[in-house]
C-alpha cells in the first residue's frame, strides 16, 4: 500500500477540505483578520489535515499489507482470514465481517459438494458390490452350462467385470480417504492372480506369458496392485502384434527399491503420444485405431501408484515394444509395525 496512491484515492475529501479552507479564508478576509492569524490558522489547518490523512493511512496500511503478504504466502489462499487480526477502523471492520461471512458461506458450499461426492462414492461402492453378485451368478451359470454355451460368453462377462473394476478404482483413486492397506506382498502371488484372470485371453490370442519373478516381496496394497498390473496386462493383450507375441515380467531388486518390468512386443506407442499416456481420457493414435479405448485405464493406474507411493514409467518404441516399470520403494518404516 502506497501513500501517494492512498492520497490520490482521497481526492474528493481533499477537494472538500480545500473548498472549506477557501471559504474559511474568505471569511477571515471578510472580517479583516490580521495576516498573522490567517497564516497561523492555515498552518494549523494544513498540519491537522496531514495528520488525519497519515493516521488513517497508517492504520489501513498495517491491516492491508498484512492481508496482501499473507495471501501471497499462503498456499491455500482461502484460509487468509484465519491469520488476520480484526482491524481497528470502522470500514476495515465492515470488510472483515463481510469477508468472514463470504468465507463461511463458501465453506458451507464446499462442504455440500464434498458431502454429495462422498455420498456418490459410497453409492458407487455399494452399487459395484451389488453388480458383482449378478456377474458372479452369470459366471457360475455359464460354467455349469459348459459344452452348451461357448467361451465367448465368458469373455464378455470378464470384460464387464474389468470395466466395473475400473469404475471402482477410479472412485477410489479420486477420493482423498485412505482406503488402502500397505503390507508386505508377494509379487509372484499377485502376478499369478492376474495371469489366472487373463488366462483365456492370453491363450486365445496365443500370447506367451513369461514370468521371471522369484520370491520378491514389495510393500503395497495387494488388491490395488493386482488392478494396476491387470490394467497393464490388458493393454498388452489389446495392443499385441499378430505373430509371436509375448508378455514378460521380471524384477530388478535394487538396494533402495524393487523395480517390476512388464515388457511386451506389441505395437508400441508412437513417440508423440508417449508423454501423454497417463493423461485422463487420452487415447492417442492406438486408441483411435482400436476404438476400444476409454483413456481411463492408465490414468487410474497412475493415480493409484501416486497414492501408494510407487513410481511408474513407460518406455516404448513404436512397432517394437512397450515396457512399463513400477518401482516400489523399500521403506523400513512399514516393516517396524
Amino acid at each position, binding site marked *: 500500500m502506497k501513500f501517494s496512491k492512498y492520497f490520490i484515492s482521497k481526492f474528493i475529501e481533499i477537494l472538500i477540505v480545500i473548498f472549506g479552507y477557501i471559504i474559511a479564508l474568505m471569511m477571515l478576509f471578510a472580517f479583516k483578520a490580521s495576516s498573522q492569524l490567517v497564516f497561523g490558522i492555515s498552518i494549523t489547518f494544513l498540519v491537522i489535515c496531514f495528520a488525519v490523512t497519515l493516521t488513517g493511512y497508517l492504520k489501513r496500511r498495517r491491516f492491508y499489507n498484512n492481508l496482501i503478504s499473507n495471501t501471497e504466502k499462503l498456499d491455500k489462499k482461502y484460509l487468509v482470514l484465519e491469520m488476520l487480526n480484526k482491524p481497528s477502523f470502522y470500514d476495515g471492520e465492515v470488510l472483515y465481517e463481510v469477508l468472514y461471512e463470504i468465507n463461511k458461506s463458501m465453506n458451507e458450499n464446499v462442504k455440500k459438494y464434498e458431502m454429495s461426492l462422498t455420498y456418490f462414492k459410497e453409492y458407487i461402492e455399494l452399487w459395484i458390490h451389488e453388480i458383482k*453378485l449378478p456377474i458372479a451368478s452369470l459366471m457360475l451359470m455359464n460354467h455349469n452350462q459348459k459344452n452348451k454355451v461357448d467361451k465367448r460368453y465368458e469373455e464378455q462377462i470378464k470384460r464387464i467385470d474389468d470395466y466395473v473394476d475400473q469404475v471402482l478404482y477410479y472412485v477410489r483413486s479420486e477420493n482423498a480417504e485412505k482406503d488402502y492397506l500397505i503390507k508386505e506382498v508377494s509379487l509372484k502371488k499377485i502376478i499369478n492372480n492376474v495371469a489366472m484372470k487373463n488366462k483365456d485371453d492370453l491363450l486365445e490370442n496365443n500370447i506367451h*506369458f513369461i514370468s521371471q519373478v522369484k520370491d520378491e516381496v514389495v510393500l503395497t496394497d495387494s488388491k490395488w496392485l493386482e488392478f494396476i498390473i491387470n490394467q497393464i496386462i490388458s493393454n498388452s493383450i489389446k495392443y499385441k502384434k499378430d505373430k509371436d507375441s509375448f508378455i514378460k515380467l521380471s524384477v530388478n531388486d535394487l538396494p533402495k527399491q524393487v523395480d517390476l518390468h512388464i515388457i511386451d512386443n506389441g505395437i508400441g506407442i508412437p513417440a508423440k503420444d508417449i508423454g501423454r499416456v497417463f493423461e485422463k481420457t487420452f487415447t492417442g493414435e492406438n486408441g483411435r485405431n482400436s476404438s476400444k479405448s476409454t483413456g481411463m485405464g492408465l490414468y487410474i493406474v497412475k493415480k493409484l501408484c501416486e497414492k501408494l507411493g510407487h513410481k511408474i514409467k513407460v518406455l516404448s518404441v513404436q512397432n517394437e515394444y512397450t515396457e512399463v516399470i513400477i518401482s516400489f520403494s523399500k521403506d523400513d518404516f512399514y516393516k517396524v509395525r
Partner: protein
Amino acid sequence: MIVEDDKIISEELTHLLETSGYNVITLTNYDNTLEDILNSNFDLLLLDINLPKVNGEFLLKEIRKVSNVPIIMLTSRALETDEVLSMSYGADDYITKPYNPTILLLRIANIFRRMEKNVNSLNYDDIKVYQNKGILVRNDKELDLTKNEMLIFLCLLNNRGNIVTRDELMTELWNNEEYVNENALTVNVSRLRSKLEDFGIHGAIETRKGQGYKLL
C-alpha cells in the same frame, strides 16, 4: 456347506460343487445363522461376508472359537482390509466375487489335499508318487518327471477314471505359475505318456477328442 444369501449364486454354487462330486448343504434361513452352522455337519464352509442380520466376519470369529473346520470367505468387496481381517480371524482362503469357478474348485481341492496328511505318498496301482521329489517309484525303479508332467499326472490321478478337460489341466498348470500355451500342454501330455510307456505303463492316458484326457 454353503452360506450365501444370494439365492441364484447359492444354487449355482451347489450345482457346481455337486457336479464335482461334493455333497452340499445350504442355509436358507438366517434367523439363527451361527447356531445353524454350528449344528450342521460338514467338512468345509463357504461363507459369504454380507449376510442378512449378521456379518460373515463375525460368524467366522465365533466359529473359530469352537471349530477348526476349513472356511473359505466369499465376498464382492475388494478391500484389502476385509481380506486381512478375515485371514487374521482364521479363514483358510478368501475369494473375491466374481470368482472363476475352476479356480474356486481348485482352491477347495487344495484345502482338502492339505488336510490329508499323506500328501507325499499317493499311489497309482503299484506305483508310489512322490510329488515333492518329482518322481514315480515302482519296484525300486525311479521315473523322473518335470514339474509340468507331475502336475498333469497328479491332476489326472486325483480325477482317476473321469475326464479332465484341457482347460482344467491348463488352470492347474497356470495356478502353479507354469504359464504354458496350448501347444506346450499337448507336448507335455504326450511326453508324459511316452515316459509312462517307457516305464512299463501302457495306455494309461486316454485322449478323448474335444473333451480332454482320462487316466485309466
